[in-house]
């Protein structure tokens, strides 16, 4: 069953990856990146059990944290960029 889960996770990661390529907006990409991160956490946890070396869980934990930090950071900066864009547009108008 662990193997099945691993394969499914890889599949879902591929799906998320294709969403990240297709895009259309930045937010789709962030969503895909976030989803990808969650899947990675799960994948590493499952792989750890599959190989019988649960030390891998530390890495999964780092992912869970870093993923959150990354998403928050991206959002903040995109917000900043959008603000700048809108203010420059107002100046143009």
């Amino acid at each position, binding site marked *: *069953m662990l193997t099945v889960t691993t394969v499914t996770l890889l599949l879902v990661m591929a799906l998320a990856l294709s969403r990240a390529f297709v895009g259309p907006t930045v937010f*789709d990409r962030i969503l895909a990146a976030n989803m990808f991160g969650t899947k990675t956490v*799960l994948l590493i946890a499952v792989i750890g059990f599959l190989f019988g070396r649960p030390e891998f*869980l530390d890495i999964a934990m780092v992912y869970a944290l870093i993923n959150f930090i990354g998403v928050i950071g991206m959002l903040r900066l995109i917000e900043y960029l959008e603000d700048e864009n809108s203010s420059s547009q107002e100046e143009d108008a």
Partner: protein
Amino acid sequence: METYELLSAVLLAAGSFLLLSGGIGVLRFPDVYSRMHAAGITDTLGACLILLALMLLAGFSLVLLKLMMILAFLLITGPTSSHALGKAAWKAGVKPLTGKSLQR
């Protein structure tokens, strides 16, 4: 022993199914918000199920504690980042598709 493994297998299967449906939803749905709906909900519940299954396999040890911490982190961060994402998208002026635009 048998029941534990059976239960964890069932949980893993359910979690995998949820994640898969979420993945397909993210690929197929028409706009950011519905995609977020697909991803956010299935992510959280699917991750919970899979981690619970792993907990059943782990038994009482440090590993269990670590799994619980991962679960807690995911439970906190998942909805939060979805919320932040939705808010940022709304603020940036991405409008959700409503009835008429969907039919187009």
